[in-house]
């Protein structure tokens, strides 16, 4: 499970627990390998799962958002949580674009979240500042670092997850207009060196920062 997706599942479970009732449904777009991720979410406590099946995972976030919006259009839910971004693309497109396609209010990259009385409030980290927002439900919220860590599934949870329903149907991806042309590993950093041991080494370090690295 992707880092931020794990946070999102945890936030969903906590939201249900706090509300005292409700249902947590996990949805994933992707090939059959995502079923394992969906089972993991159910072993953490999600009630059921839906796979929107694709052959491969497109790099086109909007096409994935379209598949999700098509699925969620008919759904009755109060909140949809996403991770802030995915590990591979770090784009952060899918959650917000899905909200927009559904016409729902969306809070991106929430680092704190409160849901009460049919309303939500959240904190978002800006660069060197933060903003507090209020929003109406139903809404889409994408989850940043700092809210919650995914719980470890219990043995009981793992056993129960095997029996929970997992539906699978073809994803209605939009047209794929972003295509990977190539991938390359960035050049390795040149090997560094140990300047010395203990406080006595700082003189040499400062000299190197001045004359060699020229950053001081």
């Amino acid at each position, binding site marked *: 499970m992707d*880092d931020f997706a794990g946070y999102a599942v945890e936030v969903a479970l906590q939201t249900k627990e706090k509300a005292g009732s409700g249902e947590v449904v996990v949805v994933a777009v992707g090939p059959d390998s995502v079923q394992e991720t969906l089972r993991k979410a159910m072993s953490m406590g999600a009630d059921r799962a839906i796979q929107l099946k694709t052959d491969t995972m497109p*790099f086109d*976030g*909007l096409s994935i*958002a379209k598949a999700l919006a098509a699925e969620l259009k008919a759904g009755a839910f109060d909140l949809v949580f996403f991770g802030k971004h995915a*590990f591979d*693309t*770090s*784009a*952060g*497109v*899918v*959650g*917000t*674009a*899905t909200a*927009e*396609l559904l016409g729902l*209010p*969306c809070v*991106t*990259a929430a*680092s704190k979240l409160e849901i009460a009385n049919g309303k939500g*409030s959240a904190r*978002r*980290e*800006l*660069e*060197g*500042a*933060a*903003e*507090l*927002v*209020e*929003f109406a439900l139903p*809404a889409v919220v994408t989850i940043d*670092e*700092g809210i919650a860590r995914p719980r470890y599934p219990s043995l009981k949870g793992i056993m129960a997850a095997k029996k929970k329903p997992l539906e699978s149907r073809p994803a209605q991806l939009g047209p794929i*207009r972003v295509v990977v*042309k*190539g*991938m*390359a590993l*960035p050049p390795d*950093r040149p090997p*560094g060196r*140990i*300047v010395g*041991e*203990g*406080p006595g*080494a*700082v003189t040499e*370090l*400062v000299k190197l*920062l001045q004359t060699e*690295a020229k*950053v*001081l």
Partner: protein
Amino acid sequence: MANVLVFAETRGGELRKLATEAVAAARRLADATGGGEVHAFVAGAPGVAQKADALGRYGADVVIALEHPALATFERESIAATIAARAKSASYRAIVLGFSAQGRDLGPRLAAKLDAPIVSDIVDLEVAGDALTVKHPGYANKVMITLTISGSPAIVSVRPSAFSAQESPRTVRAETIAPAADPSAARVKVTQVVEGSKGRPDLADAPVIVAGGRGLKAPENFKLVEDLADAFGNAAVGATRAVTDEGWRPHADQIGQTGRQVSPQLYVAVGISGAIQHLAGMRSSKTIVAINRDKEAPIFKVADYGIIGDVLEVVPALTQAVREAKKGH
């Protein structure tokens, strides 16, 4: 020849550095198509239109100002609706934003509203005929991915510091635009902006970052990191997840895979082991210094310069040496 729209972000009525970088990227894109115009979109409280000249300096031909008292804060729904309305009435080859809290929020909204392809966090771009090719460091900065985007407008957001803001002065045509959605009637409403600690640059802007890890042992020892940052002058302070989880520093200071991604001129890692998730956020720094008492710590594999030793002894000595070096200038 094709025109490019660029969102020039502001905070507290001031243009952000990333705004000028985005304008420079848009200029490059427009020039690469054979010399189209760059239209910069700026939103804020009344008065923000005065930023037109500054945007012209970095290559904007037209500045479209959206002014409204409620836009003193980032009212995303109104801004997205207004940019989308503008983009529908003109034909843009691309829409450029910064990959920042604002740009990350607006980009996908515009993509959905305009049914336009989007790629976030690009560090390079190239135009060849109809094709727009961009580079994006993916998989937590481990792989440089080249992507082609088909269709107009293509939406891209530029990584901070990847495109340098170059002066390319123009005479600006200033326009104003009415909000396409009332900014005071948004469904997501900003109630407060909490300013960060004054006097320090943000992690994205700082030429020097001093970051502390669990090796500092106790929250009060972060004072040593602060002091070293002060000695450098223009430095920001960062932390590992071990430290933010302990609550020694706020999560906003976290650097790494699930924190901020940075690439300063100089990164000083203090008592940091160098876990893969931490390296994901800082390995592209120009020069890396590591101080750790364990000579086998993985951080030394990426560090240009390492000192083996106790941070509680080495860091105060380094702070003193940096102060003296600065005085000597």
